[in-house]
């Protein structure tokens, strides 16, 4: 029917056009750039080459990728250990308080990222609140090196993304079928065993979603290593930034971005498989219209 087709185009058309123009095409351009040579004056010479990819696996850049992955992985683990019990505690609160507790946990996530990161400079620097506090207590003589190192970066990443990890884990826990837990208990399992053998495996989709989210956003992060790493600790995001704005080697910057997106897609794909497997194995509470 032509009328319904017209309606479809009116509804979907503007969005599709916008996303194609300002998301898909720009990403495709980055993909193409990664196969070209850098021009003499910083532009792009349209000569096909694999050189950028060879350079990206050079030990220098490979080690930056590995270090970024290590930092992102540590942040992910720390965030999970903080988020899981918190999400579990929220899910055990009276139902009418759960939304309020979740909003309270999510609220910082919606405030300015730069400001949230800057707050940690105020807390962690040599004359910051933590160091002066500890000194006034007489516990330390010299200020601790808390800022401009890996510790500071990981703290910043965990702080910035923790709310989302709590949300992801919570949504998995709240979907658990209480009858399964009751069955486990009725069959005589102690509560720690019910948790380890039933609750934890069934909430893995939430854990996976939260982990992938914080890992992906951490490994490609620019602001946190820039402000809390003090410029002497580089992560992939900083290298991409430098290639585009300082070194003016756009093809190489594009290659690094492309590799980053590749890592991201692989993780999302793995997560999707995990979720599908978990849903296949376990009867979850039916979601309305899911």
């Amino acid at each position: 029917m032509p009328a319904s087709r017209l309606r479809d185009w009116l509804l979907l058309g503007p969005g599709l056009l916008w996303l194609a123009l300002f998301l898909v095409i720009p990403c495709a351009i980055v993909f193409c750039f990664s196969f070209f040579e850098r021009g003499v004056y910083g532009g792009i010479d349209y000569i096909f080459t694999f050189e950028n990819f060879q350079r990206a696996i050079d030990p220098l850049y490979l080690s930056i990728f590995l270090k970024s992955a290590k930092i992102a992985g540590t942040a992910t683990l720390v965030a999970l250990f903080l988020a899981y019990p918190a999400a579990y505690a929220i899910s055990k609160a009276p139902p009418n308080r759960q939304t309020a507790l979740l909003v309270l946990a999510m609220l910082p996530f919606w405030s300015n990222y730069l400001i949230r990161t800057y707050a940690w400079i105020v807390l962690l620097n040599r004359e910051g609140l933590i160091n002066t506090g500890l000194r006034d207590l007489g516990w330390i003589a010299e200020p601790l090196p808390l800022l401009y190192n890996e510790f500071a970066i990981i703290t910043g990443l965990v702080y910035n993304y923790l709310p989302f990890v709590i949300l992801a884990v919570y949504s998995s826990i709240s979907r658990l079928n209480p009858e399964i837990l009751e069955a486990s208990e009725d069959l005589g399992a102690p509560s720690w065993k019910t948790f380890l053998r039933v609750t934890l495996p069934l909430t893995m989709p939430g854990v996976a979603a939260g982990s992938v989210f914080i890992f992906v956003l951490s490994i490609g992060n620019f602001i946190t290593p820039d402000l809390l790493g003090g410029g002497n600790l580089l992560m992939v995001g900083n290298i991409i930034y430098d290639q585009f704005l300082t070194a003016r080697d756009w093809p190489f910057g594009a290659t690094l971005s492309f590799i980053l997106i590749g890592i991201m897609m692989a993780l999302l794909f793995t997560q999707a498989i995990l979720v599908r497997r978990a849903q296949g194995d376990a009867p979850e509470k039916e979601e309305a219209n899911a």
Partner: protein
Amino acid sequence: MREFKRFDPTRLWLAAHLRLVYVFLYVPIGVLMVLSFNKAGLPTVWSGFSFEWYGKLAENAAILSAARNTIVVAVISTILATLIGSLLAIGMEYRRRGAGLEAILFAPMIIPDIVLAIALLSFFTLLEVTLGLHSIILSHVVFNIAFVCAVVRTRLRSFDWSVFEASIDLGATEITTFRRIILPAILPGVIAGAMLSFTLSVDEFIIAYFTAGAGQSSTTLPMQIYSMIRFGVTPEINAMASIVMLVSFTLVIAAQRINKESVTG
């Protein structure tokens, strides 16, 4: 639901842990807010209450112009994204298809900002578009569409499309049906989505930084904050940070109130 026993140590530990997590989340923000009223302007020593730094902000021409730019960018990109994103949400929920489209819509939420930023910069450079506030607006609409669409779609999940069919069958035009049936159903989601996208746009730094082009004329507030932070810790940043955070918190809480189920997923 399984009830905990009284004096269950696990329960006590969980409650304590949750409190500590909230302390971890709010202490850094709280410290900034308190220090913004610190008279001497030292980051650590409290020397009396003062509004001095808020006054200094109002006299700072660079900050005021950045604030104006930010509002222009946020308002225009929010209006565009709300229109486009809401239409997209209706289309996707009505048709109930578009797994590919879903993946594309998810992308702006998860792609590292820096990658989206360089992609858009490459795109604008290739087309020889002059950079400025307009290119920031075009770019911000991309991720704002994704968020508005997600919020409105959540709203439409529980919508009964047979009401829509009934209205058409009874002879109402599609426009009337949209205005009288669909719009009232999605309106809280649309308003909440608009507020969230305004917040995101006001706070966004990297994409704006890359697509703003050279020169002070298209500096936004986060770009101004970034250069101030690079310059050093000053009480002026604390004052500005407090204002920016208060605006975000107010908008997000308002959005959550208007559209109860969507903000927290």
